[in-house]
Every structure is written in C-alpha cells, then in structure tokens.
C-alpha cells in the first residue's frame, strides 16, 4: 500500500508534524491551536509534541496575530498563523498585504516574509459573517500566493509546498471539507504550487473550480453524464498563480468553459479564469456560477438558496452548451443566472 485513508484534518496535522520535526523554525499561532488542537482538530497532537513555544494560543486579535506572524517570518522564522474564519482575515489585511506581500519589493530584496496564513472559508450554517469565501480579493495582490486544496492529499501536499515558499501564502481550506476522508501518499507527496488538477476527464465542457465546490462539480458531472454530456472538471488548487496552461489545454479541446466558485462571481475567481482564457484562446463560450449576490444567512433555507449545488451547476452547463449548439459564428454566452 502506498497511501493511507485519513481525515482532512489529519492531513493538515500530518503535514505540520512532519515539517515541524524537520525545521525548528516553523511554529503555529492562532486561537485554540494549542491544547485544544484547533477548531477542527487540525493541529491535534502538535501541542503535546512541540510544546507551548511552538504551538501558541493567541487572544482574539487578528491584526496583531497576522502582524506578529509576518514580522517573525521577516526575522527568520516560518510561522503559520491560523485564522479560524476567513471572514476575519480582513482584520489582518494591513500587515499581510501592506507589509508582508510588499516586503521583498519595498526593501529592494533585503527582507522577505515566508508566512502562511491558514484560514477556513465557506458556508455551513454559521451566518453572514462566518461564511464568506473571499479568496478572489487576494488573487490580485502582487507578492501574495493563494492555495485552496479540495482533498486531504492536496491539503497535505500544498501545505508542505507552502512551508517551502519564500514569501507569504494564504492556505484556504473549507468548513465542509473537514468531514471528508481521502487517500494520502505514505511517502512525502508535495503538491507544487501553481499546478491545477484535472480530476475528471471530459470532452464537452470544462468546469474550473476549487475548494469545496470541486466536490459539487464532480456531482454535477455525474448528473451531466446521465444526459450524455461529458464534463471535464479542473480543480485549480492554486489561485495565485493560476495554472492557465492546464485550463487552456482543456478548453481548447472542449470549446466551452463554465467556472464554479462558492464566492461571489463579481470580480471572482471565474471571471479571472475566463478573462485569461479569452486572451489566450479568443472568445470561447463561457459562463460563471457562484453565490447569489447576497450575504449567506445561517438560515438553512436561505443558505441553500444562495449557493450553487450540483443541480444548478449541471443546469448552467446545459444552458451554456445549449447556447453553443444554437449559436452561429462565435458569440460569447451571457452570464447564466443562478436561478436556473
């Protein structure tokens, strides 16, 4: 056997444990990371093995937590700052974006901040300020890398890769990924940053996505298969820098692109992917699907109404392909309303 099946949280703990054993400069700070082991038990066992100096609980103070992490990184350590909810990353934007991401540039190469901000995004019944996916806001920051695994193997591999980077990396996981179990290589399986993954081959339409929505895309692909539509699903895995080669290779074969994200489509991940595909390949028919333009309520009915699901995604793909079949001469499909 070359893999073991483990929970998503165990993949994170394993990556941290292995790297912390090898490199004593790596440490973790955040709320409830110590004896509690992390809100999702993603740091289980680390406090017991590495102690309070390297697995430190902090008060609720995201601006200072991120700043302390960035400063310690600039001074030679490799901290991981755990921000329990991605919504509260906003409080740490100043030190991360104004200092961390710009440090190498503004010092003319004298300093750099190899810090990881690990944060959990996504909707799971916790309400308007505890549900957001704001990774699109981060993709345009020069100097900042952003990764988003959708499986335990990728969480393990990308976290290891992130811990080897020279500058700041945002590692985004998702509340709905923690119940997931998956096979993780027994040997060290580093997933390189900047590489997307074709997780389902197909011929008729390319669906690009990331994080929890990858699982929704795969379900949608099954629904489409029943209708004789073959969807290729690409898990982007890294949002900055995007792997446009893998996406372009796929879209040049399928001829149609549907982008899926849990966040807002306005200025979203999908819009960036479509924009770059159009620059590379011309006006390929494309469409975006994401959350409706509303805050994500904790109300079960409203949360479900707001977010993409497999049915809506497959409908969006059908509509895109319907327009493709009906068109003459290369018109671009319009934005697909999520209400379909």
């Amino acid at each position: 056997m070359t893999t073991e099946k483990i929970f998503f949280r165990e993949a994170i703990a394993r990556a941290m444990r292995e790297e912390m054993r090898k490199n004593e400069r790596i440490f973790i700070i955040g709320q409830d990371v110590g004896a509690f082991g992390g809100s999702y038990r993603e740091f289980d066992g680390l406090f017991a093995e590495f102690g309070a100096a390297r697995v430190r609980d902090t008060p609720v103070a995201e601006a200072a937590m991120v700043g302390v992490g960035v400063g310690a990184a600039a001074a030679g350590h490799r901290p991981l700052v755990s921000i329990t909810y991605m919504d509260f990353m906003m409080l740490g934007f100043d030190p991360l974006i104004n200092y961390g991401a710009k440090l190498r540039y503004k010092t003319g190469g004298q300093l750099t901040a190899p810090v990881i901000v690990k944060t959990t995004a996504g909707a799971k019944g916790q309400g308007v300020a505890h549900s957001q996916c704001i990774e699109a806001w981060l993709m345009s920051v020069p100097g900042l890398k952003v990764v988003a695994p959708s499986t335990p193997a990728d969480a393990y591999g990308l976290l290891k890769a992130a811990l080897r980077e020279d500058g700041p990396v945002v590692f985004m996981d998702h509340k709905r990924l923690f119940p997931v179990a998956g096979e993780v290589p027994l040997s060290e399986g580093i997933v390189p940053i900047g590489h997307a993954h074709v997780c389902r081959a197909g011929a008729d339409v390319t669906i690009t996505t990331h994080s929890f929505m990858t699982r929704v895309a795969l379900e949608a692909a099954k629904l489409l298969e029943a209708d004789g539509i073959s969807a290729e699903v690409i898990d982007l895995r890294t949002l900055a820098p995007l792997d446009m080669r893998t996406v372009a290779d796929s879209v040049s074969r399928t001829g149609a692109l549907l982008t899926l994200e849990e966040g807002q489509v306005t200025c979203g991940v999908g819009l960036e992917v479509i924009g770059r595909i159009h620059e590379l390949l011309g006006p390929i028919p494309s469409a975006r699907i994401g959350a409706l333009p509303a805050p994500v309520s904790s109300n079960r009915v409203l949360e479900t109404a707001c977010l993409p699901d497999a049915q809506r995604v497959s409908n969006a793909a059908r509509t895109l392909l319907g327009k493709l079949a009906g068109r003459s001469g290369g018109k671009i499909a319009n934005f697909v309303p999520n209400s379909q």
Partner: protein
Amino acid sequence: MLRSMMLIRAFEQALARRNDHGFQLLSSGEEAVAVGLCSALTGNDQLLTGGRSIGPALARGLAPDRVMAELLGRSSGTNRGKGGRGHLADPKAGFFGAHAVVGGNISIAVGVALSMQMSGSDGIVAILFGDGASGVGALHESLNIAAIWNLPVLFVCNNNQFSVSTPRSAALAPRNISDIGVAFGMPSRTIDGMDVELVADVAREAAAKIRAGSGPQFLECVSYRFSSHSTTARETRSREELASIKSLCPIERHMKGLLAAGIIDRDSEAGLDSEVADIVAGALAFADASEFPDPAEVLTDVW
C-alpha cells in the same frame, strides 16, 4: 550624540532645499528622541519606525550616502530606490526598517521580537511610533501580546503632540500616552524628548532590563516638531508659537550643556559643523552621481 543630531538636522535641511526632495517627513526638533534611543541599542538589536524615518535611520548609523540615494530614488539606495523614505531599511545594520502605514509596523516589531526570543538571541527590538499612531488598534493588540509573551520590545512613542493637524489632546483620552502601557502591566514612563541625555539614560536603563528578560516597556518622549507634519502638509501653528518652540531646540540645548561642562569648545563646535556639512555634501554628490533604477526593475523582487 551631538554630532548625530547635527548630522540629521543638516541632512534633512539640505534635502528639503532641493527641488526633487519628494514627499518627506522631517525630524527637525525631534532629533533627541531618535539619537537618545539609538545610543541604547547594540549591534544585536533591531529598530523599526513609522514614516518619520530619516532621523532614526541616520541615528542608527546607516550610511548617509545610501540613505540620500534612497530618498532621491537612486538604485544605489538602501532599498535599490524602491522603498523611499516610507520603507527605508538596512536590517544588517540593525535598522529592520520603516513602514509608511501609521501604526502598521508595531505588530511587525513584536513579531521580530518573538523571533529573536525563540532564537535565544539577546537582542531587543525598539519600535518608534508617534502620538498619531497611539490610537491605532494594532498598537493596543501588540502591547497585549508583547506583555503576555514577555517579549523583548521597547515601545517608544515620539509624542510631537500633533497628528498632522490634530493636537494630541483632541485625539487621545489617556492623560499621558504612557498610561496605555500601564494598562498592559509594563513599566511605562513619560519624559522630556528634547533632552537627549535624559532620553539616552532612560532608554539605556530600559534596554538593559529588557535584555535581561524582564519583558516589554513603554517610553513616551514628548517632543516638538519644528516644521509641519510633512513637506506637503500645511503648517497650523502661528509664527509666535513656532518661534517659541524653536527656542527649545535639542541640539542647541545639548551643545550649551557640553560647552558649559567644558566637554567641547567653540572650535570643536565649528569643527562638527563643517564635518557634518561635508558628510551631507558627500551624500548629495553620491546620490546625484547615481543612476535611477532600470525600468525593468518594476517587476523584480515581487515574489
């Protein structure tokens, strides 16, 4: 320390006289704070500042040539011309750097101190910020973390009593800014920032205790700003007020003291004047002879 303050004054005034001086925050009147503080720092320590960085950078011993080149945008500057005054840095010389976001460098400084503590270094971190930064949330969060983790940080508030146009009394509730440090349980003092020997003595005492592991301290130095906040900000004070303020010059005060004590005489004073003038002239000449960065550098050192 006299020479250091005189160098800062002469350097900044020469810079301000140029047409291409750019957007600068000058320290005239506040030299004693930077110089007194830096006299307490060793080679193992790191100094971080806000945007009023030129005085502290020179006080810390950065080469005036390379500071001037940086301020005038030359690639021979400390930051290859890419940071300017707002981000001056020379970490190898113990000047971890300036950061132009008001209060933005304070949590960074605490992180640097954490790294030093974890490395077992006996260095300390001094973070210099103004009264204008003292209302920033990150200051309070950083004081708290430095206190609970017993970090080797000297928080130095250079209270020049104005945040651009807002007088300190209109901006901050505590009677003394150092009261903020008291709230977090650390030794905190307010002193006259126009007296370089006092600043030096107090800073050295604090630094020694911090170096010995006693935890962070807060030092407020009350000073006077001789010019407006920046080269683009309008002056808000009257001529009379400014004249009165300038009579408190820390350089003249220190010089008088040294003369009275017989430590220097008029000849050595003149000697210092001319030495400092030469250094500044040399810095300007170095900068003027230096190239601007190649436009291709716009994309280097991003990642």
